[in-house]
């Protein structure tokens, strides 16, 4: 199952994705999140220490998190700001940390958190606006490393077809 979180107000991107996923019969949850109430991660560490696996911030992200833990792929569609994804997109990634535990291990040469669930979703990004694509690809690789999954890449809005080829 694929989870797609659209933090932009542009539903044309998700319409295109919906149509193509229907053709290739891929199960997907598409969440239009631009008007949802999703705050930033407050860094309380409760999801690791006090209520393992559960976020202390009770807002619309909780339902998204419940879907992410069962997903094979997580895609975030985000506007950009200052050469990066904007805060709405970043908040989706920052709030995902309940899916890893605070226990640690070495994977290859670096420390990693131990996964909470058997498998974590591979992660992909579709960005709308000016940003450094090379940096975003590097960043996505790092995100995936620390989630113990794989990066599907960072794609410009104009490259939705390429992103779709990873989904179908």
């Amino acid at each position: 199952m694929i989870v797609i979180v659209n933090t932009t107000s542009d539903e044309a991107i998700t319409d295109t994705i919906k149509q193509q996923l229907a053709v290739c019969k891929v199960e997907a949850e598409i969440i239009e999140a631009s008007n949802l109430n999703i705050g930033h991660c407050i860094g309380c560490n409760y999801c690791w220490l006090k209520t393992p696996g559960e976020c202390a911030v009770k807002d619309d992200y909780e339902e998204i998190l419940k879907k992410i833990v069962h997903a094979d792929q997580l895609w975030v569609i985000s506007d950009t700001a200052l050469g990066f994804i904007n805060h709405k997109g970043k908040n989706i990634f920052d709030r995902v940390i309940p899916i890893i535990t605070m226990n640690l291990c070495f994977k290859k040469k670096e420390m990693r958190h131990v996964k909470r669930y058997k498998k974590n979703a591979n992660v992909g990004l579709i960005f709308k606006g000016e940003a450094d694509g090379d940096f975003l690809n590097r960043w996505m690789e790092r995100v995936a490393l620390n989630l113990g999954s794989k990066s599907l890449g960072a794609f410009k809005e104009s490259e939705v077809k390429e992103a779709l080829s990873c989904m179908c």
Partner: protein
Amino acid sequence: MHVLIINASPRVKQYSNTDKILGAFTKGLSEEGATFSQYELSDRRSWDEIRNAYYENDNILIAMPLFVECVPGILMEFLETLKSKNDGTKVSFILQGGFYEASQLRCGETYLEMLAKNLGLEYAGTLVKGGNFGIRLAEGEARDKQVEPFKEMGVEFAREGSFFSPKCKAFAGPELFPLPVRIMVGMAFKFAMPSYFTKASKAFGAKKPLNYRPYK
């Protein structure tokens, strides 16, 4: 030298590791005769004041924890409200994280240099340091000891006006641990740390094990 310091941790000041780091760092600044004013992004009521300070000061230091390999969402949200300055204002960063290896912070560091450019600010380097998760779990002298090395970096920053000196670069520590250390630390993670973390978790009031899966 006067430095505008913005603590970009989303955690409230009382529990902010970044704040404890800044506590030691600013002691070093003061020892060298530099002055500073510090603001916390976690207090949204002060954002207007911080914005004004951003426009009025020409030497800015933004300190933050690494959040999912880059800057915390709350910092992006604040920065998105600012206008580019393009007036020679300097910006430096302190980027701290939980993992010990400096390699874990390099992607975030790369972004901070890009960020300076995108804000029309003159980049004056990033002080990179990992291994800070334990600040949260320590108290009193043990905590002071953990952050104490940042005081010397405050002295260095006051003298140099940037984080480009060899001393600041070396402060990051090893990029990766050598294999024997990885084996030893890996064993500690497997056999000793889980019980330490479980103890810490219980002190927080946890009723479930650390690896609990609430959404099966």
